[in-house]
């Protein structure tokens, strides 16, 4: 383990933390906004709880589909000026979180929409017949009933974010992606390359295991 000089150790720790920071910030924002967007996509859709055709077309057809069709590597670079406006800099994990969030919100929203669509219309009818308001149907029936699917969607999204964060590292975001590139690629240090890969694999495994445990806890079907 002689490649682990104190400098490398410190850089590795910083990089790991930066990755976690990016994933946490963009993960939390994605889940909050994406959940709302996913619910909106579902309820405004055809046959939904409150169909609003124009809104659904704008959200689904324009915003979600266009954002999702842009490859993340391009979207990320394209959004650098936007990150400057939002956080005042184009460098560092916080700036990277801006493009990460925008890149994953539509992805997560679609997964939420799918999870909500799996809630049988009979349950929604039952809730309405019992005198629920539309908000109560969403809050007390649709979201809780779709929870196993939503938890799985969060897990998939966080795993995707870990992958995207490595890409974001290359354009100034820092983190393990940057580490692998500078030490592993440009300085040709295969040990450090391998180590960053191991750390990322472990991170993904941990997220997946935690996600599966929670999904099992909330799934009473």
């Amino acid at each position, binding site marked *: 383990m002689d490649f682990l000089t104190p400098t490398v150790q410190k850089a590795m720790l910083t990089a790991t933390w930066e990755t976690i920071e990016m994933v946490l910030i963009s993960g939390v924002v994605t889940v909050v906004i994406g959940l709302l967007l996913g619910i909106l996509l579902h309820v405004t859709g055809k046959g939904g709880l409150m169909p609003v055709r124009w809104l659904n077309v704008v959200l689904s057809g324009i915003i979600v589909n266009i954002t999702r069709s842009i490859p993340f590597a391009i979207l990320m670079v394209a959004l650098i000026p936007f990150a400057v406006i939002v956080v005042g800099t184009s460098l560092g994990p916080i700036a990277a979180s801006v493009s990460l969030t925008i890149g994953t919100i539509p992805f997560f929203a679609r997964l939420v929409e799918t999870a909500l669509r799996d809630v049988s219309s*009979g349950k929604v009818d039952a809730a*309405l017949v019992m*005198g629920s308001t539309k908000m109560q149907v969403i809050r007390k029936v649709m979201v809780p009933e779709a929870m196993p699917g939503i938890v799985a969607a969060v897990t998939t999204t966080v795993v995707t974010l870990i992958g995207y964060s490595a890409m974001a590292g290359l354009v100034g975001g820092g983190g393990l992606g940057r580490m692998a590139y500078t030490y592993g690629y440009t300085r040709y240090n295969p040990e450090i390359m391998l180590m960053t890969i191991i750390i990322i694999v472990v991170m993904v495994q941990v997220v997946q295991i935690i996600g599966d445990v929670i999904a099992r806890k909330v799934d009473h079907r």
Partner: protein
Amino acid sequence: MITVRDLRKVYRQGSNDVVALGGVSLEVPTGKIHGIVGHSGAGKSTLVRCLTLLDQPTSGTVSVNGKELTNVSADELRDARRRIGMVFQHANLFDSRTTEQNVGYPLELTGTPKKEIAAKVAELLELVGLAKFAKAYPSQLSGGQRQRVGIARALATDPDVLLCDEPTSALDPKTTDEILELVKKLRDRLNITVLIITHEMHVVKQACDSVSLLEGGFIVEHGDIASVITNAEGRLAHTLLPLPGDAPRSAGAGTILDLLYTGDQATEPVISAVSRTFNIDVNVLAGSVEQLSDQQYAHLRIQLPVDADVEAITNYLKSNGIAVTVKGTK
């Protein structure tokens, strides 16, 4: 009491109008169980959705105890819906909630205090015989138990009307009878009006006081069980009390009569009375005799000898309150 007046529902499908309900009127008095039967496509589902205002009827009114549900604001409709408890074919319980949380759901909506909800839920679960399963999730219950939870949930708001949409169609025969017994018990206990929509004649026979036959969006026949069963011209009599499938249409020479009768006459030995009075031999070709809600009903196919005075015998039977149809002479 639930009153439906000239309920119509017309769907637009492309450029044509599809009439799903052509003007349905019915009235079920408080404390009675009324069945609405019909084949698939008769308009049963549309009727249910219009009764609960899940679909807005094109015209007509639905009222519960004189209070109209149609033509009210969204807020009033939510309150009005709480006067109708609904039981679904597949129970439609919430999988994320335990039995007690499912039953308590309608009460949660109006912000009922937790203690009150708990007391009401315990009482309801006791009533449907599921007190032991309060903490179980729907996936841990059998189909019949799930339907009991569905019934308890429907009763949580102390509704005036219990609307059951194919409540037993997904259950086996034994469980079906248990659920129907429960519905009858609840009707007796709570004096609630029950409307059961079903395609199963068995349900009508087991539980209903009166019945309507829905066909092509219209009620084509209705009445209490005793009157529809003895109406030889009606269609319900033959579906409620059918002769065995291979009932012979003739056995040698003679006149064939179909007899439909109920209650008092069914206990009288009509056949031997005819034999004695007219001094003839009567041949019973087929028959079904059933006991429905403490009343006996019979549907017999008999054959009279060639030389019998058919008119006199028919009149004799009719004067005894028996519906007679002459099926033909051979």
